[in-house]
């Protein structure tokens, strides 16, 4: 102590010189409300600007992919919607499409339309959660309440159609779990008819709001080249101006029959990501309306009794149906050996299912290419050099779901 005192005394002329500073390490999370899950971000700060950022993940790792390897293809399906719990139908869709690709199986057109309708409702629902929480992170409370009101309406439809609010597991290999309930189409139409007006309400609160603009415009931007190099996909990539939407480039489940646009940004900042997602919700509404209007007649399940369980009524009087039912739910069905990688455009980006089959009733290996995983990897690039307060804005704009990052 005393020596230090003499030192300062000796250096007295320097006391008005530049203040010696050092960087500070700040721990954000794992229980920070804006991390939307259990994520820990280590930040290195110099004053208020961020010089380093290290996301630490893995808190929710439960080995879902390993778990799927010991289950039959049917039993592995409910694991998929537990990954991205905000977009369960999209996750189901990716998985069933991958297995259908392995089985070389085509589902009826009505099933494709129903899947598209529900997948787009999922996109709206997921984006609503994003919009609400993102706005809440930036201080706008009302939007959050509005968004969750509309989300609840979708969730109610999901609950009625599949039996569960969030973990739907409604899409099945070769079709869907059951025929939608009688008023399903009316419920969807009622929601979709009212929705554009609601969208206008959200936009009125945010799009030209000067506070929102100052928090988001030219904040945490990434260029198109950088976004591609970092493996970013989905709305994030499109906000940087890259026209890559799997629904257009690698159409699946009949998306080639629908008429929609791919909204693009240019600056790649937080505001552009907001605009792209808002426009995507309007496009999702447009696709859902087309699916609803053009819903074809006909069967819902693929005609493949080895894979698709027979209708319940048949079991009482049809021996063959009973045998198939028993086989499917005990042994499962055999899938030809081979490997496929099926990608779909989930609300968060490119969702890929890589499945290796060895010909047995359970997958040899499943790898889920989770969009949030790759998108979160871009976070350090986004926030470096920016202000500390913008980390929250950036994190919100990435729209992560930790469940699928850690799997």
């Amino acid at each position, binding site marked *: 102590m005393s020596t230090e005192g003499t030192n300062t005394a000796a250096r007295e002329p320097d006391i008005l010189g530049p203040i010696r500073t050092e960087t500070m390490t700040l721990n954000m999370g794992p229980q920070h409300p804006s991390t939307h899950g259990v994520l820990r971000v280590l930040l290195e700060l110099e004053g208020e600007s961020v010089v380093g950022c290290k996301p630490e993940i893995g808190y929710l790792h439960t080995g879902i992919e390993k778990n799927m390897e010991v289950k039959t293809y049917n039993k592995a399906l409910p694991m998929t919607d537990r990954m991205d719990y905000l977009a369960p139908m999209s996750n189901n869709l990716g998985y069933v499409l991958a297995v259908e690709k392995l089985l070389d199986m085509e589902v009826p057109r009505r099933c494709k339309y129903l899947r598209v309708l529900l997948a787009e409702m999922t996109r709206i629902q997921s984006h609503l959660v994003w919009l609400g929480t993102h706005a809440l992170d930036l201080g706008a409370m009302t939007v959050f309440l509005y968004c969750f009101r509309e989300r609840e309406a979708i969730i109610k439809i999901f609950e009625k159609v599949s039996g569960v609010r969030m973990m739907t597991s409604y899409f099945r290999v070769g079709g869907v779990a059951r025929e939608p309930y009688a008023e399903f189409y009316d419920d969807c139409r009622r929601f979709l008819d009212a929705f554009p007006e609601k969208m206008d309400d959200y936009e009125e609160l945010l799009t030209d709001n000067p506070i929102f603009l100052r928090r988001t415009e030219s904040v945490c931007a990434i260029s198109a080249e950088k976004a591609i190099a*970092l493996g970013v996909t989905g709305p994030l990539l499109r906000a940087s101006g890259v026209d890559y939407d799997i629904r257009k480039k690698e159409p699946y489940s009949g998306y080639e029959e629908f008429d929609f646009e791919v909204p693009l940004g240019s600056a790649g900042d937080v505001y552009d990501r907001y605009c792209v997602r808002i426009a995507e919700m309007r496009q999702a509404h447009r696709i859902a309306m087309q699916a609803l209007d053009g819903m074809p007649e006909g069967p819902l399940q693929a005609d493949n009794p080895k894979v698709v369980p027979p209708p319940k009524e048949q079991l009482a009087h049809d021996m063959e149906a009973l045998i198939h039912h028993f086989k499917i739910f005990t042994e499962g069905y055999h899938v030809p050996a081979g490997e496929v990688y099926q990608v779909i455009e989930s609300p968060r980006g490119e969702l890929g299912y890589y499945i290796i089959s060895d010909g047995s009733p359970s997958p040899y290996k499943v790898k889920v290419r989770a969009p949030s995983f790759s998108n979160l990897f871009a976070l350090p690039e986004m926030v470096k050099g920016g202000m500390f307060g913008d980390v929250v804005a950036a994190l919100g704009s990435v729209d992560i779901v930790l469940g699928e990052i850690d799997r």
Partner: protein
Amino acid sequence: MADEAGTTESNGEGSAETEAPKTPPGMDLRNLVDAEFPGAVLEQSAYEDREDEVTFVLKVDYLLRVCEYLRNHPAASFKILTDLTAAHYLENEEPFQVIYQLVSVDHARLLRLKMKIRDGQEVPSVTEIWSSANWMEREVYDLFGISFAGHPDLRRILLPEDWGSHPFRKDYPLEGRGERIYSKPTRKESGE
């Protein structure tokens, strides 16, 4: 046919039993790589002859050169490494496969690269070519125990640093090793 589709070899003369004029999918890319690096591609296959399921099995020594070539060549332009994973085959002589999924935004197509390696063999890291490989290689290192030479920050990513083993290997049981199972204390233990 379906069983064999995953391993169909087509070195030009292999497709004699199918219709002669039909070229296997991905042949344009194969020719591109072969012209530059003869012998780099050991096998070529495509599930059910699908354009979007083309797989090349590469020689490990060629990995970095082929990847860089495929990224930069305008006819391939695989600018995105979208996924990187591994598979474990216990009984194989080369038990591990490292699998790369590439995306070309310009040509809207996918390509899968594969490498077969021995246990403990190091794989060159592709982080210099695609920085997105960073976390994916860490994940493979974490869950399969495959090391990547030249990776800037090869640490475990999902599991705690002291986990000790690699749970996605096939010999790792679903329950057991490393599991933290909570068991209720019996009456004797709790002193009742």
